[in-house]
Every structure is written in structure tokens, then in C-alpha cells.
């Protein structure tokens, strides 16, 4: 993990691979990316993606959740296929899907973040930098999913992985409200670095929590 989370220019470019089955979207995305990001390659299917990532060893993989090929597992399968590289290569999930199952399954497979495809060029560049720096990237919607899954109130659960701390709850809530990390830091009077720590902790919980039914709440969201 580098010390500067949002550096500009001076550092070596971040090497990425773009995985998406729509060529138009790939080229549009490449055009949108800011300076300091070097696109090493592209892939359109699960097999191509695994091959490209293994060969090119990028810093970050921009990964569509829904991909043809493989055994139908999409982005999840790509991450599973590159499991050995997870220490050096980070995955940022990119999707048009709003379905909680899609998002959470790819996060649980090992993705470091999730953004929707409607994100701005500036937003995606920032997200890539963040993920490359070892941090997690949460869109408002993902934060909403997390809050929905873990509950918005502090409840007594034996396993520490199964609940969010008060601070993490606050951070998630602000992200769900559309705050940037910087704004969250300002609002809570903490440093951006601390916000990143909290978000990474939440990501870890989302990935490791024994709440295997994490995706189920979408179906039976309780009414108050």
C-alpha cells in the first residue's frame, strides 16, 4: 500500500486491464479515463480475461459483473480464475446491474470495489487510483446494500464480522447519501485515511462475514 492515496501525475502510471463484453463500452471507457492510467489490454469473455490478467499482471482490473463465456459465472469466475494474483492485482467491479446478488457475489469473490457504469470519467479514474492504492471503493448503492444487509442499528451479534461498528455505520451512511470520501472525512472530523480504513474494514466484513445469506435480504427486506 502506498502512502499517497490520491496522487496526481508524478507517480508511475497505473496499469489496468478493461474487461467488458461490449467493445463500444470499452472504447468509451478508455477515452474517459484520466491521465496516469495505462490500459494494457482488454478482454470480452471470461477466458480472455483470465488469460489477459495472468499474462499482463496489471495493477487494477476493471471487471464487468456480467460476462459471457466460462461456466456462466461472469466476473466472479474471472476473479476465481485469477485467485493466485489477488495479492498484486486488484479488481474493481463495474456493472449496470442493480441486483444485490450480482454486486455482493462479486465483492465476496474478492473485488475491491463496485461502481455503476453510469459513473463519470473523473469518478472512475478516482476509483481506479483508490483501488490501486489498496483501498476499497463503494458506490452509494453498494453502501446501501451493506447497510441493508448488516442492519442500520447496532445489534448484539457474537461474531464481530457480522456487524458494523458505530463508526463504520456512519461512514456507510454518508457514502450512501452521496458523500465523497473527502466529504465524509470532513463531516466526521476524521482524516481521509481513516475513512479509507473504515471502508476497507467494511469490505473485509462483507467478504468474510459468515452471513452467507447476505444476498437473501434483498428478497425478504423486512418492513418496519
Amino acid at each position, binding site marked *: 500500500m502506498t502512502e499517497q492515496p490520491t496522487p496526481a501525475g508524478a507517480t508511475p502510471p497505473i496499469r489496468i486491464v478493461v474487461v467488458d463484453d461490449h467493445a463500444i463500452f470499452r472504447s468509451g471507457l478508455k477515452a474517459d479515463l484520466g491521465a496516469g492510467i495505462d490500459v494494457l489490454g482488454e478482454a470480452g469473455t471470461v477466458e480472455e480475461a483470465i488469460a489477459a490478467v495472468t499474462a499482463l499482471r496489471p495493477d487494477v482490473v476493471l471487471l464487468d459483473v456480467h460476462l459471457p463465456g466460462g461456466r456462466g459465472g461472469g466476473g466472479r469466475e474471472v476473479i476465481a480464475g485469477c485467485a493466485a494474483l489477488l495479492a498484486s492485482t486488484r479488481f474493481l467491479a463495474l456493472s449496470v*446491474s*442493480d*441486483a444485490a446478488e450480482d454486486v455482493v457475489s462479486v465483492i465476496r469473490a474478492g473485488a475491491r470495489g463496485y461502481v455503476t457504469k*453510469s459513473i463519470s470519467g473523473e469518478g472512475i479514474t478516482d476509483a481506479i487510483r483508490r483501488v490501486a492504492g489498496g483501498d476499497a471503493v463503494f458506490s*452509494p*448503492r453498494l*453502501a*446501501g446494500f451493506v*447497510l*441493508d444487509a448488516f442492519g*442500520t*442499528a447496532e445489534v448484539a451479534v457474537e461474531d464481530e464480522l457480522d456487524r458494523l461498528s458505530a463508526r463504520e455505520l*456512519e461512514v456507510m*451512511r454518508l457514502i*450512501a*447519501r*452521496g*458523500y465523497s470520501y473527502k*466529504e465524509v472525512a470532513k*463531516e*466526521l472530523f476524521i482524516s481521509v485515511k481513516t475513512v479509507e480504513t473504515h471502508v476497507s474494514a467494511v469490505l473485509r466484513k462483507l467478504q468474510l462475514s459468515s452471513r452467507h445469506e447476505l444476498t437473501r435480504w*434483498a*428478497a*425478504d*427486506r*423486512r*418492513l*418496519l
Partner: protein
Amino acid sequence: MAARLYRSSDRIIAGVCAGLAEHLGWNVGLVRAIMVASSFFFGAGIFLYAWFWVLVPVAGESPLGGAGTPSAAADAPSERRLKLFRPAAADGSGGPLPGAAGGGSGTGLGDAFGTGAAFGPGGPLAGRGGRRVALGVRELLAGAALLVAASLLLGNQFGLDLPLGTIIPLAVIGTGAVLAWMQLDETRRAGLLNVAGADKPWGVLRFIAGIALVVVGVLIIVAGSGSWELLAPAMLASLGVLAGVGLVLAPWALKFWRDLQQERAGRIREAERAEIGAHLHDSVLQTLALIQKRAGSPQDVTRLARAQERELREWIYQDAARSPGTLATAVKDVCAELEDLHGTAVEVVAVGDAVLTERSQPLVQATREAVLNAVRHAGTPVSVYLEARADAVEVFIKDRGPGFDTAAIAPDRLGIRESVVGRMARIGGSADIVSSASGTEVRLKLPADRNGPEKTGPEKANTEKANTEGTPQHD
């Protein structure tokens, strides 16, 4: 026009009489009485009944391949909107969806084969209501049969020469056949492919009992003409023949069955495809055409694309949470409406949900005003976050516009002062507006209703004032 002739699900034996009554517009009891009475004329009623049983389809089943399906297909879509990414919907064989799609796939193959129709619909809905009624009547029927048997025996005793040697085996065969055929109707109803495990043993037992009775009857006839010594070899021979026929027919029947299954699956897929195609045509293609026409106006294009995206998402993911009459749905609806009106993206994230009550209705209205304000003045995408907890419901509306001085809101700016702050105060909630150069956030909070009825008239002004002064600090 008379109703089509179907066998009714409100049945005693096979629903023939009830179906006939419905068809003719007569009383069921009358039809049944006539049927029973005519049975005494050389069994005419019985033959008529058997005839109808074999040839008339059960209600809900189409008599000729596809003849009944159009109507079924027509009213089905509203019920079963496709859930593309929910595989569970695909294997509900026998459920309403495959039933409607596969309608009449098997019937054309002849009812004599019996199982043919079992692949068809027959909907699991049929036949539950009538069953309870039938139970009692069935016992009566059994009693009547016993009575007839007893009187026959009695007649025999008094020297009436009845060919018992013929009547008994025939009766046994008849009972066996009725049993077996009744079973078939039942499986038709449930859809042979997914008879619930609980029903199965009983059904199989009935079927076997029916066959056994028929075999015994045939044997008695055979043995009656010969001697009882022949019984054992005759039984063996008939079993041998049955086994042989079964052996020959089994692979053929299996293949037949598989083909039918395949065809049925194909039909379902086709129906799904057709539905998807129809939907895409009505929605996406139309929007694309509109977008091409409006290519000159980026705002129109964005608006159309957003609206279409929303509609498509809703269709594909069919949010289980999206039930009418909940707060989240209401908020999403007003945001969608404003998005359409102004062409600015409004992203809604909802956590938890609550029933939309009279008390929370103003919250939705206040949210609408706040979003409207943001859309009008900020010109940037707007984030709406709704959190419904047990103790309170909170809504946050955030934009990244230039912001404004909250203290300097002109008194005549009804939008904010009255529609947002005032509205929230009246229902015992609060509204804060935090604005800076980097954006504005409106925070609405409605605590759970603990003190019974909401605050009313006279207090209005006070609460509003209290709220604008002592703005509760968030976080």
C-alpha cells in the same frame, strides 16, 4: 351461448355430470339423477358416463392442441411477468407458467393413451374445492353400490336367475377401471411430472389396486369359463403377456415421454422469448426511435434514456421490495417523476422500508419538493438516501450545485419554507438544510409515532419555529 363442455373440477367421480350441467345450464342434481336413472336401462347411463369421461377434457385443459391456449396466454402475462434472472421461475413445472405455455401439448395424442394430457396444464388450482364435497358423496355412492350388490344377492336367494358369474367379474373390472382412471384424472390435475411427494404413494397404490382389480376380474371370467385349476397357469400367462408388452413398450413410451418433455420446454422457452421480444419492442425500440428523433437535444436524450433504463431495470430485476404502498416505492416514484420532468439524474438508495401511512405521506411530499429544488437550481445529479428504521425514517437529498445561503431564503420562497420545513414540522418531524459552495443537503427526519396522534392545527406555528431555530445536529 352455452359454456363449452368440460368435465368439472367439482366432481364426484370424474366431473362429467357437473360439466354437463354447466354446459346445458341444468341443475347438477338433476343431471346426476338422470344419469343414475338411465343406468338402469341396460346401463345406458354408465356407458354414457364412461364415454364422456374418456372424451371430454377436464376444465382448463384444451380439447384440441392449442385451441384453448390463446386466451390462457392472453391473460397470463399480467400475472407472470418474467423474471429473467430468477432461475427459480424456470423449473416450476406444473405451475401456472408452464401450464399455460404447454397447453394442449399432449392432448392431441389421444386421451386413450391417457398420460398424454398429463403433460398439459390442468392447473394445480383445479379440484381442491370440489374435493371436500365429493368425499361425503363418494361414501354415499359406495353405500349405494353395496346396496345394489346386496339386493342382487337377495334376488338370487329368492330364485331370481342372475348371471352372477358374469356380473361379479364385470363389476370388479369396472371398479378397477374407475379407480385407475380416477387416479389418472388426479395426476392430470397435479401435472404428472411433479406430483407432490406426499400424494405419490397413495396415488400409486390406487393405480396398482385398480390394475389388480381388473386383472382379477379378467381372471375370474377366464377361470369361470374353464376350471379353477387353470387359474394359476392363466394368471402366470396373463402376467407374462403383460410383462412382455410392458418390456416392448417401455423404451418407446420413455422416448415418447422425453420428447413431450422436450417439446414442452421448447414451448416455454418460445413463449418467454416472445414475451421478451414484445416487451423490448414496446419499450426499448420505441425509446431508441425517439432518441434518434431527438438527437439534437441532449437533455431530451438523457431523459428518455434514463426513463427507459429505469423501466427496463424494474422489469428485469423486479425488485421484491418494490411493493406498492411502501415508503421506498413512493419516494422512488416521485424521484422518477422529477427525473422525467427535468432530465436530471436522481439516484435513489433505500435502506429498509416502511409502510406508507397517512403520517409519512407528507414526508414523501417534502422529499419531492426538496428534490425538485435540487433539480431546478443545482443542475447536477441528485442523490436521495432513504433510511427506514424502527425509531425513525430519514431522507437525505444531496446535490452538488453552487449552494445558497439558508439564512437568506427569501420569505416568499414557498418551496423550501412551507413545502419542506413546514410540512415536516406539521407531522412532528424536522427538516435541516445544509448548504455550502460544494453542494446542498436537505435532511428530513420523521421519528416513529410514539405519542399517538400527530400534532395538529394550533401547534403548527410553534413547532415550525422551534425547528428552524434549534436545528438538531446530525451525527
